[in-house]
């Protein structure tokens, strides 16, 4: 007989509550796909089970009837909503799937908010803690990454729904993979040891590789998937090699432990430097810093556009979260070494992205190069090595996510009607034929260029300020210069929309309810947060707390 004083590691499921919600959605989606027309037989018991868990949480967690447990309430609502949706959308399985995925992402977003106010927020600040035996960080970075990732998911789902349907590339695997990828991203932002970090990275990567190639008949999509996969696999391997070396050198797999080991004067610095370089290559690939950006244009161009939007927005946020955590927490003792290197990479990315985008004709490729430039801007916050820089990066990534989803949303509308890749000439005269779409696109482009009073301006302001405060004047100057350069090609797109005549046979862009809703929300956020950034900016500033 064993000692029954139970073996209980430090497990706090609340720290990954949003991910649990997403995973449950994935499971429901997969099972409903299998069930086919008998999906009620899956939805009803699953809905009841979810609601039952909610009731149990209410009973166990609520301190008083006046203060009910939010996850409990949410679970009950979600369970009921699941059954109701299955009833209501019985004839349109695709819409049902999208709605359930949206339900999962929405629940995840609500749970993130709950985490902020009920779990992570003490007084005026985030409290940083770790749980799951040190595997998961519960801090500002983790939670802010969740906001960006889940919001992106929630926006991309409706925007892309009609698009994949029209292109006839919708598969029932689509939503589960999207959600799994989002879970991987959120966990990447929360991972506090290199094993969790790596596995989360693989979850998101595997799902994205497949999503990129989900247009099975489109050779570009297939090519993009293979390129992304091969290069991504190599990058993952290099990252892993870096982790292995840092483990050799420090004897720790947990990020704070690596930092501790590094601070030890006897640690083999050269080895650590090499491991740092290898890790930089690995994460640099994921966030597309020059010179690891080779995959970006082809993958952005080849992937279905809604996947591109998701990838551009959410992967970047998650990748930068991992980069932040790795460099600011684990490799902090070697800051003297990596800050110059990463700063140069940031500068190169801004310059190369801006320069290469100038000569692009395909709008998706153009936005891909602009994504490289934006990765450079976001990196300024990291190399600032300050709390201000940290929050500036998080905030920048948020603004970029919303903006790029809006921009690619506009392309989706054109592409749906055009049935082919969108070139700049396809935008000709859009201001006359579809003024609303042109307005939204222009808004997104202005935001990407960083023109006040848009969201993008707020983001750039944050990183440039942080850079200046940390004395990285040359980088900030370079950033401003490249911003001006990039404004040129964004304005070129706008010029095409408003200053040229439409082609006589120019097709009318296609909209759908989901697209309308998603793009309206995204554009609204660009305007509203551009004027009133304080709500989330405050959060980002206070979230500059890392579990160490």
């Amino acid at each position: 007989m064993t000692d029954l004083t139970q073996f209980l590691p430090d497990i706090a499921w609340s720290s990954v509550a949003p991910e649990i919600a997403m995973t449950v959605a994935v499971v429901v989606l997969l099972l409903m796909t299998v069930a086919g027309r008998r999906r009620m037989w899956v939805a009803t018991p699953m809905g009841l089970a979810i609601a039952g868990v909610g009731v149990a949480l209410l009973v166990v967690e609520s301190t008083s009837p006046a203060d009910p447990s939010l996850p409990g309430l949410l679970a009950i609502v979600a369970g009921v909503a699941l059954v109701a949706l299955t009833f209501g959308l019985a004839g349109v399985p695709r819409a049902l799937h999208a709605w359930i995925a949206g339900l999962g992402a929405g629940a995840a977003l609500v749970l993130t908010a709950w985490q902020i106010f009920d779990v992570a927020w003490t007084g005026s600040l985030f409290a940083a803690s770790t749980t799951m035996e040190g595997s998961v960080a519960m801090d500002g970075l983790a939670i802010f990454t969740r906001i960006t990732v889940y919001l992106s998911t929630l926006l991309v789902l409706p925007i892309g729904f009609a698009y994949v349907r029209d292109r006839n590339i919708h598969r029932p695997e689509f939503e589960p993979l999207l959600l799994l990828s989002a879970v991987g991203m959120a966990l990447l932002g929360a991972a506090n040891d290199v094993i969790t970090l790596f596995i989360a990275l693989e979850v998101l990567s595997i799902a994205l590789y497949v999503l990129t190639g989900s247009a099975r008949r489109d050779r570009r999509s297939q090519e993009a998937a293979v390129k992304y996969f091969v290069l991504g696999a190599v990058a993952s391997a290099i990252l892993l090699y870096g982790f292995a070396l840092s483990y050799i050198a420090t004897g720790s797999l947990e990020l704070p432990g690596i930092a501790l080991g590094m601070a030890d004067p006897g640690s083999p610095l050269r080895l650590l430097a090499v491991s740092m370089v290898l890790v930089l290559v690995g994460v640099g690939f994921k966030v597309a810093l020059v010179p690891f950006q080779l995959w970006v244009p082809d993958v952005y161009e080849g992937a279905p556009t809604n996947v591109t939007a998701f990838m551009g927005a959410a992967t970047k946020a998650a990748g930068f979260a991992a980069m932040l955590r790795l460099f600011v927490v684990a490799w902090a003792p070697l800051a003297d070494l990596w800050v110059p290197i990463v700063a140069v990479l940031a500068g190169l990315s801004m310059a190369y992205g801006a320069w290469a985008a100038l000569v692009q004709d395909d709008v998706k490729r153009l936005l891909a190069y602009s994504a490289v430039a934006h990765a450079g801007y976001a990196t300024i916050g990291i190399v600032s090595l300050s709390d201000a820089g940290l929050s500036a990066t998080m905030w920048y990534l948020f603004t970029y996510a919303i903006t790029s989803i809006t921009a690619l949303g506009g392309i989706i509308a054109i592409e749906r009607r055009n049935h082919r890749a969108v070139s700049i000439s396809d935008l000709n005269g859009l201001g006359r034929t579809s003024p609303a779409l042109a307005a939204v696109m222009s808004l997104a482009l202005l935001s990407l260029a960083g023109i006040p009073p848009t969201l993008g301006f707020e983001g750039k302001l944050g990183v440039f300020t942080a850079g200046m405060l940390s004395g990285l004047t040359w980088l900030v100057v370079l950033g401003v210069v490249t911003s001006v350069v990039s404004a040129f090609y964004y304005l070129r797109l706008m010029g095409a929309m408003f200053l040229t005549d439409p082609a006589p046979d120019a097709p009318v862009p296609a909209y759908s309810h989901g697209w309308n809703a998603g793009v309206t929300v995204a554009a609204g956020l660009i305007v509203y947060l551009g004027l009133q950034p304080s709500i989330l900016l405050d959060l980002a500033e206070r979230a500059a707390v890392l579990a160490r």
Partner: protein
Amino acid sequence: MTSLDIVFILVAVVTGGAAVMTVTSRNLVHAALFLGVTLAGIGATFLLLAADFVAMVQVVVYLGAITVLFLFGLMLTRAPIGRETLDSRNRPMAMVVSAALFGILVVLIVRAFGSNQFPATEPISSSVADLGMAIFSTWVFPFEVVSMMLLAALVGAVLLARRQSGDSGTETRVTPIREALDDSTEELDRAPAELGSGGER
């Protein structure tokens, strides 16, 4: 030189040689088989490091499953079963890069630990029970995430391997999206009858 060293050198030479053959072999199946030898060599190295559970796992998973997956993957494709060259012009460049990386790592690792050897005590107990306790205490969360990763991999494999209705893509030029529209719609809940419209040949 102890007997262990000699065995290790033998294993290392075989592993390294097989690894070189993996990347230089012009026949894909041979490359996969050399990869198998490499992985087996790594398993033997684990064994020499007294990690016998890991060694067996290495054989079961890497040799037993992953290489077999490669081989099946090769059987799936039309061209490269025979002698096909898979060369790209980047070969010299790749050789330079890998040689440089190898050199740097060797120098650094030897420098980092060259003089101070690890105490040659009995290898730290790597019993399976300890491993189990480690997985289910310190690493329990990544362990759960692994299941998510496997789920993603399998769902992805289904998406990629599942045949769409109609003829599979034979077009070679860049396909505008319009052509992708020509597929007949695949119903979400169609019975999986048309699934494996591929015979064995």
